């Protein structure tokens, strides 16, 4: 399995192909949202909504054999695309790997510039919530 660093490099390379064309970049992000696995309807509840996002984002995580599995959904396509990128990088990794991950692909693909400050703050909120889940699982493993 590729490392977190490898996958981030892959993502950066993919975005480099799109160049400075903002419209194509957004279309691409929206398409990526199609990669998300279906989100279970039973968990479409307020307690799974990430605070700090302008759009509504539901995030769910479970631990199987020491690895964290994420499921997520959003009411907007761009946000779905963004969260699919985060899941691509962090899914099925140990809590330790997730907590230690330096998610540098976000500034590297110039996300703040493409999306504006509000949406990139939302992206940071998603990332933090994913790390919080990892921390909870790590604490449980140690206990």
């Amino acid at each position, binding site marked *: 399995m590729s490392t977190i660093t490898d996958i981030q490099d892959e993502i950066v390379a993919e975005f480099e192909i799109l160049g*400075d064309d903002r419209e194509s970049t957004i279309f691409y992000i929206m398409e990526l949202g199609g990669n998300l696995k279906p989100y279970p309807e039973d968990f479409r509840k307020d307690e799974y909504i990430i605070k700090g996002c302008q759009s509504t984002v539901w995030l769910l995580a479970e631990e199987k054999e020491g690895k964290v599995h994420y499921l997520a959904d959003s009411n907007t396509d761009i946000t779905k695309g963004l969260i699919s990128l985060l899941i691509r990088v962090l899914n099925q990794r140990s809590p330790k790997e997730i907590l230690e991950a330096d998610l540098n692909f976000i500034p590297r693909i110039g996300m703040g510039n493409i999306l504006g400050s509000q*949406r990139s703050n939302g992206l940071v909120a998603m990332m933090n919530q994913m790390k919080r889940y990892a921390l909870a699982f790590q604490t449980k493993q140690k206990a």
Partner: protein
Amino acid sequence: MQIDVNFIRNQFPLLHQEVNGNPLIYFDNAATTQKPKVVLDAIQRYYEIDNSNIHRGAHTLADRATQQYEETRESIRAFIGARESAEIIFTRGTTEGINLVAKTFGSTFIQKGDEIIISTLEHHSNIVPWQMLCEQNGAVLRVIPITDAGELIQEEFEKLLSPKTKLVSIVHASNALGTINPVKRIIDAAHAVGAKVLVDGAQSASHLEVDVLNLDCDFLVFSAHKLYGPTGLGVLYGKRELLEAMPPFLGGGEMIREVTFEKTTYNTIPFKFEAGTPSIAEVIAFKPALDFITSIGKSNIHRYEHDLLKYTVELLQDVKGIIPVGTAAEKIGVFSFNIQSMHPFDVGQLLDAKGIAVRTGHHCTQPLLKRLGLEGTVRASFAVYNTRAEVEVFAQAVTKIAKLKNK
């Protein structure tokens, strides 16, 4: 009169720029309008030449600043056809104007069990101050329902009216849908039961003729920044007898006649409601903005903007997936819509990539959107400097986005 849009555009420095590699198309005028050079120059000139505190200074600069400040008050009087400039109160904006009336007129003349009527079309700033008042004094808030097209149901309004009605606070033109309300009829019906009427003119003052004597409204509020003027400045018009009967809003300097530790007596209107040093530069720079509007003529502006709206509808009405929101017969230049299977945020972001500025979301009208069963809309709102060519670029961009999910 034919609008010379190139001549007008040349007066707005901000419009001449590229955003994300495309010429800026600014269609967010219901949020705020851009400022003509004369307004920018007036702010600059004030700070470079006349900056001084008004009304009290015994020197030449103070005198010059005061004179210009009061000239704007007189211009506003003429602009809305009020009897006297003492009926014009400067506020920080429409929101503050409504809060002022709620806190002073409301807390004095509206009692427990009395009723206040608003409509489903209201902006949050014409809902929340009345809810706060009702919580405080036990008055009851009533809401005029609307049709699916976004028009008030006049018969339902008339059913709500009773001797208990003390105030009708109504938006002249809806910010989210553009619907123009028949305020004259509403005012006459409200007066017939002895109620006072506040007209929220935030969206109408720059597009429609608003003559307070002809309308006979008791209060009118609007914001300078939506009339090509500076931010942080609003206007409250009130009839003299009401303003005189109302207690002051904020206490402090300027609003007093005499202060002793035992008792303070208040200044006459309008100063009674203007505590503290006001936004002097903004007030002074608002006059050229009003002159700008007057020089074109409001009926010309409304006709021109309405043509842009008609053209937009024409270009987009047959595009698969476009859902117009708000189809009232009488509208200002606001085109609110959704695209089937797409969230308004995503549409807004894609338009921004093309340099097109629109508003997306609930437009501070959550109860209205809930009534329409929507989470939000995309809103394009026009001003007199927008062009048919811009509408064409916008329609093309929207059509391209609509095709993504509606093949």
